[in-house]
C-alpha cells in the first residue's frame, strides 16, 4: 500500500499511446525500445567514424582539428560499445529470453523497464557532452593521468565518468534480471541442457556483467574522486600509479569484450542450425566452451598492457592464458562449420550474415592470436593493427551477428518479413565495405601507423591504404543506409510472415507473430532440445491466431501491471548526474543534484511498496 502524502497520478491500468510506452513493463516493448535506441546510437557512432575516416582519407588533412579528432575517437568507441552493441544485445535478451524459455515475462518487469530508461539516461548524458563544452577526449579506456584534472580540466571526462556509471547501473539491473529469469522461470521440462544456445550465452554474459561492472564502477569512482575532491588515487606525486587505472580498467575491460561477443555467438548458434536444417553440432561442447570463455576471460586482462613494463613473468603468464582462450573460441567455429557440413543450407539474408560472421570472426581471431604473443604485440600495440583486430571481431563479429539476428527475428517481432532483395544488397555492401575499410588497417599497423593520430605525413607510405579504407567506409555507410531503409519499409508493408517463417527450432516460433502480450496461451512442457522442432515432428503446428484452442482463458492470465516508478527513478538519476557534474563549483548545481537523487530515492521507495499487481486490477491511491 502506498503511504506517500503527496497526491500522485494513479497507477496506469491499460495505458495507450506514449504513456503506454513510458510505463510499459512488457519485455517485448522494452526490447523494441532498446533496439530502436541502440540503432540510433549505432548511426551516431557511425557518423563519428565517418568523420574520422574522412579526415584520414588524405595526408595532412584539416577537416577536423586534433582536439575534435580526439573527441571523435573517444566518443566513437564509447558509443559503439556502451550505447550500440551492448544495448542491441540487451534488445535481443529482452525480447527473446522469455519466449525461448517459455515464460510470460522476466522475473522483475519493473526492474527491466528501469534498466532501459537508465540506459537512455546514460545515452543522453554521454551524447549531450558534444554540445555542453566538449566530449571526452581520452579514449574509450580513459588512461590516467590524461584523464586527471591536471591534464583534462574541462568537463568532457566528467561526462564520460558519470555516463558510464549510469550505464553501469542499467547493465547491472538487466543482468541480475536475466540471471534470475533464466535460472528460475523456465518452462516445465526445460533443463539447463535443453535451453537454446542464445539463452545459455545470455546467462553467461549476465554473470560476466554482474562481476565485471563493479570493478569499473570502483575505478570510475576513484577517478571521479580525484577530479572532484582532490584525492590521490592516480596522482603520481602522491606515490600513486597510473598503471593501477589500467589494471582496474582491463580487469573489467576484458570480460567486457566477451560480454560483447558471447550474445553474438549465441545468435549465430540459433541462425546456423535453422538455416542448415540440422541441430547444432556438439551442443554440450558449445555450452561448455561458452562457460570456459566466461571463466578464462578473467585471466587474460594484462594482454592489453604488454608494453607497459610489467616484466617478463607477467607478460609470459598472460601470453599463455591468452593463447589458451583461443581454444574454446576456435571450438565454436569448428562446431558451426560442423553444423553446416552436409546440411541443407538456405542462403537467405540471416544466413549470409551468419556465414559472414564466421568468416570475419576467424580473421579477427587470427589477429588476436598474433597479439597474444607479447613479443609480436610489442610491435602491434597502439598501431592500426589493433584497430583492424577490434573491428574484425566487433564489426565483422558482433555487428554482423546482430544484423543476422535482426533479419531472423524481425518477422517474429513485427509479423512481417524484411525485404530479401534489399537484405542481400545490405549484406554485400556491408561485407565488401567492412573488408575494404578494415583489412588495409592490418598493413597500416605493421607499417607503423599509430592509433589515435589525427593526420599523417604523405611520405610515411600510408596514403593508399588510408584512401582505400576511407572508401570502404563509404560503402559501409551505404550498406547501413540500405539496412535502415529495409527496416522502415518492411515494418510498414513487408510481406506478411506467419508464426514460423523459417521453419524454426525453438519455442519463440511456436507463437503468433507478433506475439500476444502474454506470449504463450499455454505454457509448454518441454521434452527435448530444439523443443519446437521436436513438437513439429510430433504433429504440433504453430499456433496461428492469438489465444489458440485449449489454452488458458486470456482473462485468467495475469500480467504484471505497468508502472511509472522505473521511469521516474531513471529521470532522477539523469537530473542528479547533470547536477553533480557542476556541483563542486555551483550551489545551484548541487541543489539540482540533491533534487535528482531525491527523486530517485523516493521513486525507488514508492516502487518497493507498489505491488506487482494492484489487487483488483485497478489503480488505487
Amino acid at each position, binding site marked *: 500500500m502506498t503511504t506517500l502524502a503527496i497526491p500522485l497520478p494513479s497507477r496506469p491500468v491499460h495505458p495507450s499511446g506514449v504513456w503506454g510506452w513510458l510505463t510499459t513493463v512488457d519485455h517485448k516493448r522494452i526490447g523494441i525500445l532498446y533496439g530502436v535506441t541502440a540503432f540510433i546510437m549505432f548511426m551516431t557512432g557511425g557518423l563519428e567514424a565517418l568523420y574520422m575516416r574522412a579526415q584520414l582519407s588524405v595526408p595532412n588533412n584539416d577537416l577536423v582539428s586534433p582536439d575534435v579528432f580526439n573527441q571523435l575517437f573517444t566518443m566513437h568507441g564509447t558509443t559503439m560499445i556502451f550505447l550500440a552493441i551492448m544495448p542491441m544485445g540487451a534488445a535481443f535478451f529482452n525480447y527473446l529470453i522469455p519466449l525461448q524459455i517459455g515464460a510470460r515475462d522476466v522475473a522483475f518487469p519493473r526492474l527491466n523497464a528501469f534498466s532501459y530508461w537508465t540506459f537512455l539516461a546514460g545515452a543522453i548524458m554521454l551524447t549531450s557532452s558534444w554540445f555542453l563544452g566538449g566530449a571526452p577526449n581520452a579514449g574509450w579506456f580513459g588512461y590516467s593521468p590524461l584523464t586527471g584534472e591536471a591534464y583534462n580540466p574541462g568537463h568532457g571526462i566528467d561526462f564520460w565518468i558519470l555516463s558510464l556509471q549510469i550505464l553501469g547501473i542499467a547493465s547491472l539491473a538487466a543482468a541480475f534480471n536475466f540471471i534470475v529469469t533464466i*535460472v528460475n522461470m523456465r518452462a516445465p521440462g526445460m533443463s539447463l541442457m535443453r535451453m537454446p544456445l542464445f539463452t545459455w550465452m545470455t546467462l553467461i554474459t549476465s*554473470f560476466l556483467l*554482474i562481476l565485471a561492472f563493479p570493478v569499473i564502477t570502483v575505478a570510475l569512482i576513484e577517478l571521479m574522486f580525484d577530479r572532484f575532491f582532490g584525492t590521490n588515487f592516480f596522482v603520481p606525486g602522491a606515490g600513486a*600509479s597510473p598503471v*593501477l587505472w589500467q*589494471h582496474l580498467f582491463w580487469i573489467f575491460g576484458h570480460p567486457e569484450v566477451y560480454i560483447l561477443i558471447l550474445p553474438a555467438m549465441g545468435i549465430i548458434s540459433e541462425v546456423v542450425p535453422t538455416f542448415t536444417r540440422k541441430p547444432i553440432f556438439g551442443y554440450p561442447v558449445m555450452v561448455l566452451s561458452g562457460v570456459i570463455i566466461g571463466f578464462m576471460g578473467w585471466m587474460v586482462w594484462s594482454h592489453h598492457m604488454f608494453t607497459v613494463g610489467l616484466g617478463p613473468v607477467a607478460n609470459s603468464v598472460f601470453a599463455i592464458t591468452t593463447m589458451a582462450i583461443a581454444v574454446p573460441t576456435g571450438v565454436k567455429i569448428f562446431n558451426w562449420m560442423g553444423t553446416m557440413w552436409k546440411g541443407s543450407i538456405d542462403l537467405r539474408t540471416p544466413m549470409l550474415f551468419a556465414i559472414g560472421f564466421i568468416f570475419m570472426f576467424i580473421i579477427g581471431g587470427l589477429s588476436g592470436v598474433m597479439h597474444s604473443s607479447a613479443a609480436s604485440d610489442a610491435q602491434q600495440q597502439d598501431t592500426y593493427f589493433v584497430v583492424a583486430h577490434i573491428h574484425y571481431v566487433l564489426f565483422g563479429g558482433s555487428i554482423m551477428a546482430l544484423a543476422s539476428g535482426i533479419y531472423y527475428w524481425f518477422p517474429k517481432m513485427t509479423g512481417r518479413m524484411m525485404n530479401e532483395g534489399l537484405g542481400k544488397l545490405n549484406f554485400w555492401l556491408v561485407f565488401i565495405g567492412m573488408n575494404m575499410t578494415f583489412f588495409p588497417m592490418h598493413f597500416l599497423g605493421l607499417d607503423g601507423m599509430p592509433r589515435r593520430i589525427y593526420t599523417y605525413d604523405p611520405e610515411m607510405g600510408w596514403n593508399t591504404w588510408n584512401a582505400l579504407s576511407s572508401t570502404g567506409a563509404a560503402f559501409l555507410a551505404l550498406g547501413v543506409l540500405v539496412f535502415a531503409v529495409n527496416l522502415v519499409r518492411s515494418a510498414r508493408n513487408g510481406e506478411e510472415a506467419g508464426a514460423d517463417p523459417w521453419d524454426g527450432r525453438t519455442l519463440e516460433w511456436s507463437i503468433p507473430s507478433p506475439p500476444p502480450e502474454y506470449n504463450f496461451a499455454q505454457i509448454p512442457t518441454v521434452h527435448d532440445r530444439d523443443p519446437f522442432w521436436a513438437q513439429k515432428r510430433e504433429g504440433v503446428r504453430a499456433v496461428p491466431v492469438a489465444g489458440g484452442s485449449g489454452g488458458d482463458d486470456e482473462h485468467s492470465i495475469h500480467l504484471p501491471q505497468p508502472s511509472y516508478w522505473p521511469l521516474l527513478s531513471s529521470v532522477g538519476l539523469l537530473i542528479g548526474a547533470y547536477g553533480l557534474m557542476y556541483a563542486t563549483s555551483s550551489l545551484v548545481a548541487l541543489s539540482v543534484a540533491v533534487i535528482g537523487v531525491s527523486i530517485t530515492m523516493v521513486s525507488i521507495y514508492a516502487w518497493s511498496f507498489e505491488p506487482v499487481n494492484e489487487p483488483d486490477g485497478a489503480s488505487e491511491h
Partner: protein
Amino acid sequence: MRMMAEETHGQGANGDIHTGHPTPLIYFKVAMSLCAITAAEVAIFYVEALGHGIIPILIVLSAAKFILVAMFYMHLRYDSRLFSGFFVAGLVLAILVFIALLALFRVFF
C-alpha cells in the same frame, strides 16, 4: 500458544539441516564464538614477538568468523546450494583477481 521452531521440527540443540532452522541458542553460541575469535585476534595482534607471523593466523581467524556468519546467520548451511554458488562465485573471483593484482604490483615479493 506459541509454537517454537524447535518443537515443530523436532530438532536438537544443533539445528536440523534438513528442515533448515537453527535455534536461538545456536545463534547465541555463534555470537559468542564471534566475540571470542575477535578477542583472540586482538590479543594476538599485541604479541609483538610473532611479527609477520600474525598474518596467516589472523587470516584463518577472520575466515572462521566469515564462515560462521555466512553459514549460520546467512543460513547457507541450511539453504539451497545455488545461493552458496552465487555468493562463492563472486567471493572467490574477487579473491583470486585481487591476489593476482597484488602479485602484479610486487606486493608479495
